[in-house]
């Protein structure tokens, strides 16, 4: 398995699951990047989402764990109850420090650490949600030269999170759901 030199990040909370499932379904059978997802969820559900998606879609969809290499053609979910971070040697680390924006995993933590490692090779999506997690992280990705995309608040089931992302950043791209899905569909 080869380390990925490009990474795509997705942060989502309430109202984002359907779109995430849809875009994963549309992924080609091989893609040259790593995809890394923070989805706020109840700790009780633990790893059921990635288990059922990987069974259904027959792709490398896993729950990230400590010191795991970040590889091409893989989809990683942040494990419930831990922050997910990216280390300079292109591995994950997890940490159980304080909640950020009432969240652990926090989207900000992943975005912020990924920004500094992958710089302009980092693309981030901020989706529907009822809180403001991820907005600061987007700004840091922007500062480090990455690409930032926000789900159009007009179509997001809950727009608090996309709106916060827009407020906090300078030049985000605002995309509709179908544009987001087709981006993942044409990844290579």
């Amino acid at each position, binding site marked *: 398995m080869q380390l990925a030199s490009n990474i795509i990040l997705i942060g989502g909370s309430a109202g984002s699951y359907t779109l995430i499932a849809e875009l994963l379904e549309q992924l080609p059978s091989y893609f040259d990047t790593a995809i890394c997802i923070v989805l706020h969820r109840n700790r009780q559900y633990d790893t059921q989402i990635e288990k059922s998606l990987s069974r259904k879609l027959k792709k490398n969809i896993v729950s990230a764990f400590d010191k795991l290499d970040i590889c091409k053609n893989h989809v990683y979910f942040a494990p419930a109850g*831990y922050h997910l971070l*990216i280390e300079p040697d292109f591995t994950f680390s*997890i940490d159980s420090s304080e909640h950020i924006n009432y969240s652990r995993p926090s989207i900000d933590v992943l975005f912020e650490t990924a920004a500094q490692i992958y710089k302009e090779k980092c693309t981030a999506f901020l989706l529907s949600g009822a809180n403001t997690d991820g907005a600061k992280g987007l700004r840091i990705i922007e500062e480090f030269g990455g690409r930032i995309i926000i789900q159009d608040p007009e179509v997001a089931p809950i727009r608090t999170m996309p709106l916060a992302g827009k407020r906090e950043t300078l030049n985000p791209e605002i995309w509709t759901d179908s544009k987001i899905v087709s981006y993942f569909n044409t990844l290579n």
Partner: protein
Amino acid sequence: MAGLKENLIIEFQDLEEIIYLLQNVSEYDLSGYSKSSLKRRVERFLQVQNMDIVDLKNTIINVKDFQHYFIQELVVNVTEMFRDPHFYVSLKKNVIPYLKTYPQIRLWSAGSSTGEEAYSTAIVLNESEILERSFIYGTDISPRALDIARKGVYPLSKIKSYTENYLQTQPTSDFSSHYTAMYDAAIINKEYRNKVLFSTHNLVTDNAFNEFQLIMCRNVMIYFDKELQRRVLNLFYDSLSLFGFLCLGSKESLYAHDIKNNFKVIDKQYNIYQKIK
């Protein structure tokens, strides 16, 4: 937030210099900690103290004993009683029956933080009727956390979620029977406090100090890089009696380490291992 620099970010190079300075003025060696995680802790420290990186370097060099304070601010002490309740269910089912065959049982909670894990374990031992012949050592790098651990006093506000955890461990008693409420705090019963000894021990630099039938080190090695994890796992290996148990956190495993060949997997999901050679 007047005066507070928002989103302060330092360079990895600055982090290396901080690590190097600390090594020079103290026993503390942070070179094996996970870099991004540690960097965030340093950034948080600077933000809370309203310092910049130059201030910090000067303070490390010039202020006597600052390093002890600093290190305690960098480590993550977050813990709870019966964290991952199903781990304790597995402990009761898969490990305790084996421990029962020993006349004397020594346990080590490494990275015990403020003591919740050690006391949770003591309660489980009591329910299994082997507390009498057991003794738990709780160790940590942070004297401040250990002080709280020794007192065994926790805010009543946390007891609700601890009780919820406890209820998921298939308990044989009421959680409230294990502590006494006083004003806004709960003090863990003396029968448990008498069975745990808390002392400082640095997993990076200190060595084995006893032989144990069970070692738990949960949510500590996630802060270490692979190389340091290897050192610490060897330390645990040396400190375990043959057929002793090693318990890791719910997202930690021996999977990436050669030492796994000396262990048998007892519970794959909750990362419980037994030393078999």
